[in-house]
């Protein structure tokens, strides 16, 4: 060892002597604590790097010319006037990119859907308002927008198909309105219905809404001649998959395409999927040999980025005399919009597969009919398929309670899968995995939720208020989420000569705080401070493989891969330190970045940086670094309960959510503050979908929700105080840390709980059958309620 290293070792020795207790707090100094985020500083000081903040010299700006008709024959596009404008370099239409194939499916591919994929531009026909028909490339964003207005698009309007539940037919010559049906089920459903004591039926509708992040989409591409690399900046969510697709579509080797994720202003399922605009900037950067920048405006976002949710369900349940479910049968009409985008059948698949939720359902049959309409294409949005199916299932449970005159809580208790039945294999699959509910004490969590609000007392209070004339009520909904989708994650961790730790993952950040959570896991495993760790994500050139950030997978999959890699780095460090310190590995541990002896309160120590430097000097495998993989074939299943208290204004039909509780068991909370943040944020989006947000169209398919003045997202005024109970009763047996994902449970059951609360407020069981409950729909219900109250003549 060099003299300087010895000197430092002695200094550390003395420090170790003054604080011997530091050596014993090894296990979990960081995991489980509400530590401040590593991400915050640049975002608080205006130094963030969002897509629009990225510029390259000589860049051109792209502006998309979009269809103004929901359905029509595209007869001609005249770009002559646009091309004469100063600063306009090119105008592209379908003919210019005819060689580029349509955008493929990322998940849930179903046979027969290929012809319904979207190409970069409409060719002979436009199929929704907002569909790209041309692109203008100009020196400046204002000029590009001016020129786009001069592109003359000749479209012969055709009748638009806007409903998803009519008889299946022709969407257009050669294409059907129903390209596929997703069928799932098990057990003898018909026998169950034949022997049922009662059959409960409901027809339920969920409106069209979406994630709508505050940052619109953006993409900046450039081609680097020197490296022969096409770069795409502004990447999000699934950079590696998008890299491979862009390479395939443009006929390039994947290594010659690199994606770079900067700050991402919200994901929610919508942002970061591969869209026509992403591929267009790449193709243009290659062909025009100029960097190309595209920043979406808000109107574009609301008509062109993925919508979600819109479904009709015809559901029925067979029950015995005690309210126990014997079978559920459900037919889903899923309004996909005009094309099948990257998610293919993901949303209807999840809706059908997750509908049984936390209950024993001995026989089950679901058919999800994917329907095309002349509207914006759909994809996933936070808790995709589950916001919808939880609404349907919990409405059904309330209807069973009403039919058999049972208490709403009691009917749920009778049907909940017991803790002793875990793991519970459900003969269904989704996202390519078999559904095995891995762990859970559903009844225990229900008890926690009821206790947290003092349910009996709450119901008494509300009954008194109703007796005094107020329209108030409470609603309860239970659900099972899913998280930690595999099949794998790769993480590489390196320590440099100064002791700085770098975690490189193929995961992505959409603002959820993954850098902090991953650093906390690395910190505890490796024995360093979480603030000393740099977490790299979303950079395809830094790591070969990456699955990205979706399906509440990052903390579970990237977290576990981080733990594996950090354990390997630690083992390497201890082996090297054993030689350097002349001590057996068994008595060494890493504490605060130092390898120390655990069998004495004092003794020599050596920092991880010094070990890394020593390893780099040769004689060993150079460097202090390791790679970790985590693989799984199964998702895991967090579960929760929502309780809503709502008040309805008799005159206006407005709903006030007075109080809201989310209880959620996620096995182990790495950072409870961040988990609560996810839950409350998800809850706000759920409240939006339950009460306010809706993409509406007129009878010609013209979108009516094209600004934030039409598409109403909750402000602070619409938000109730949200109480959160984070439960850790059921760690996942599928990963050593016991982790489950926390991203989607806040949104999952909001529609269901609010619907139940409004039923009670109105005194009309099963009244709410449609979301969102806008004042117009509420007033319709109120008129019905008044009609009920009126004495018969």
């Amino acid at each position, binding site marked *: 060892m060099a003299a300087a290293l010895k000197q430092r070792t002695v200094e550390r020795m003395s420090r170790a002597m003054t604080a011997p207790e530091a050596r014993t707090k090894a296990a979990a100094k960081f995991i489980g604590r509400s530590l401040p985020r590593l991400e915050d500083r640049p975002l608080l*000081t*205006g130094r963030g790097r969002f897509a629009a*903040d990225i510029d390259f010299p000589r860049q051109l700006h792209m502006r998309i010319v979009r269809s103004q008709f929901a359905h029509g024959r595209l007869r001609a596009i005249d770009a002559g006037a646009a091309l004469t404008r100063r600063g306009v370099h090119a105008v592209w239409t379908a003919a210019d990119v005819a060689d580029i194939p349509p955008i493929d499916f990322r998940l849930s591919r179903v046979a027969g859907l290929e012809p319904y994929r979207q190409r970069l531009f409409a060719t002979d026909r436009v199929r929704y308002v907002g569909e790209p028909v041309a692109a203008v490339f100009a020196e400046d964003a204002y000029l590009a927008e001016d020129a786009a207005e001069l592109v003359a698009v000749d479209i012969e309007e055709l009748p638009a198909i806007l409903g998803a539940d009519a008889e299946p037919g022709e969407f257009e010559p050669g294409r059907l309105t129903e390209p596929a049906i997703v069928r799932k089920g098990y057990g003898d459903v018909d026998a169950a219905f034949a022997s049922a004591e009662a059959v409960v039926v409901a027809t339920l509708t969920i409106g069209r809404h979406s994630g709508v*992040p505050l*940052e619109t989409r953006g993409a900046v591409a450039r081609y680097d001649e020197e490296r022969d690399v096409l770069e795409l900046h502004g990447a999000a969510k699934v950079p590696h998959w998008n890299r491979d697709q862009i390479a395939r579509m443009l006929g390039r080797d994947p290594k010659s395409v690199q994606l770079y994720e900067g700050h991402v202003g919200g994901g929610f399922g919508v942002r970061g999927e591969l869209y026509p605009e992403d591929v267009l900037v790449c193709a243009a950067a290659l062909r025009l040999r100029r960097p190309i920048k595209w920043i979406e405006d808000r109107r574009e976002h609301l008509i062109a980025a993925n919508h979600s949710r819109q479904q009709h369900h015809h559901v029925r349940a067979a029950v015995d005399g005690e309210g126990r479910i014997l079978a559920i049968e459900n037919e889903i009409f899923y309004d996909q919009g005009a094309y099948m985008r990257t998610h293919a059948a993901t949303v209807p698949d999840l809706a059908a597969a997750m509908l049984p939720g936390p209950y024993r359902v001995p026989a089950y049959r679901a058919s999800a009919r994917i329907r095309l309409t002349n509207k914006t294409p759909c994809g996933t949005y936070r808790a995709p398929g589950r916001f919808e199916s939880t609404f349907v299932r919990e409405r059904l449970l309330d209807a069973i309670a009403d039919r058999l005159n049972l208490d709403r809580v009691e009917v749920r208790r009778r049907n909940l899968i017991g803790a002793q039945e875990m793991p519970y294999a459900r003969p269904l699959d989704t996202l390519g995995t078999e559904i095995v509910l891995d762990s859970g004490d559903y009844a225990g969590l229900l008890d926690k939720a009821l206790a947290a609000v003092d349910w009996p007392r709450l119901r008494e209070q509300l009954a008194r208020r109703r007796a005094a004339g107020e329209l108030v009520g409470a609603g309860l909904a239970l659900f099972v989420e899913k998280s930690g989708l595999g099949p794998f994650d790769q993480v590489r961790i390196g320590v440099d000569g100064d002791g700085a730790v770098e975690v490189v993952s193929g995961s992505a950040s959409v603002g959820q705080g993954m850098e902090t959570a991953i650093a906390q896991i690395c910190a505890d495993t490796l024995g360093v401070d979480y603030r000393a760790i740099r977490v790299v994500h979303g950079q395809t050139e830094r790591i070969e493989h990456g699955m990205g950030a979706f399906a509440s997978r990052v903390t579970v999959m990237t977290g576990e891969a981080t733990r594996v890699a950090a354990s390997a780095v630690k083992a390497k460090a201890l082996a090297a330190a054993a030689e350097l310190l002349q001590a057996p590995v068994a008595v060494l541990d890493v504490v605060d970045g130092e390898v120390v002896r655990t069998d004495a309160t004092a003794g020599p120590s050596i920092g991880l940086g010094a070990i890394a430097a020593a390893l780099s000097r040769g004689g060993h495998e150079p460097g202090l670094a390791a790679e970790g993989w985590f693989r799984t074939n199964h998702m895991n299943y967090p579960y929760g309960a929502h309780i809503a208290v709502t008040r309805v204004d008799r005159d206006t039909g407005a709903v006030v959510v007075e109080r809201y509780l989310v209880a959620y068991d996620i096995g182990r909370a790495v950072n409870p503050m961040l988990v*609560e*943040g996810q839950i409350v944020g*998800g809850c706000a989006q759920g409240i939006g979908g339950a009460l306010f947000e809706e993409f509406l169209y007129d009878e010609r398919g013209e979108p009516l929700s094209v*600004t934030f003045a039409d598409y109403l997202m909750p*402000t602070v005024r619409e938000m109730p105080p949200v109480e959160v109970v984070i439960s850790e009763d059921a760690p996942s047996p599928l990963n050593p840390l016991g982790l489950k994902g926390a991203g989607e449970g806040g949104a999952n059951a909001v529609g269901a709980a609010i619907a139940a609360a409004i039923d009670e407020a109105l005194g009309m069981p099963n009244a709410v059958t449609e979301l969102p409950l806008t004042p117009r729909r509420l007033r319709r219900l109120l008129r019905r309620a008044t009609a009920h109250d009126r004495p018969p003549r």
Partner: protein
Amino acid sequence: MSERREIKLTINGKAYAIAVEPRRTLVDAIREDCGQTGTHIGCEHGVCGACTVLVDGDPVRSCLMFAVQAHGKSIRTVEGLADGDALNPLQRAFMEHHGLQCGFCTAGFLMLITGVLEREPDISDEALVEVLSSNLCRCTGYRNIVKAACAAAAEWRRR
């Protein structure tokens, strides 16, 4: 329409002499012509408040103001809040209370709250929440933004 006019904007105390078309929005001038990209564009029609800056002390939606209208005025943006590396109390409160997730709306909230507290240091928490309802956040559900704003207001009043 495309004739440029020479204007002067003072942003966080620094003067910028720029030439802009009359139609150029203030937010585009701040971001593109003056390079201060901490101010974000969320909706371009004055609803979301992500682009809120202080113009002569007043919170303004910079997507709804033309740059030429701000000629000679003093503009403050999120870049001007911290003192070197030291976050100011409001920024610290946002960090401590987890008042941001993706951080895209954050600059707008910080400037809105700054403008309100400077004008009305004794504002009640209820009135402050009412003010916060003028901006949109899609990540946090607002609870922690309210906590951070109220904590910062309390500290503001103590000073």
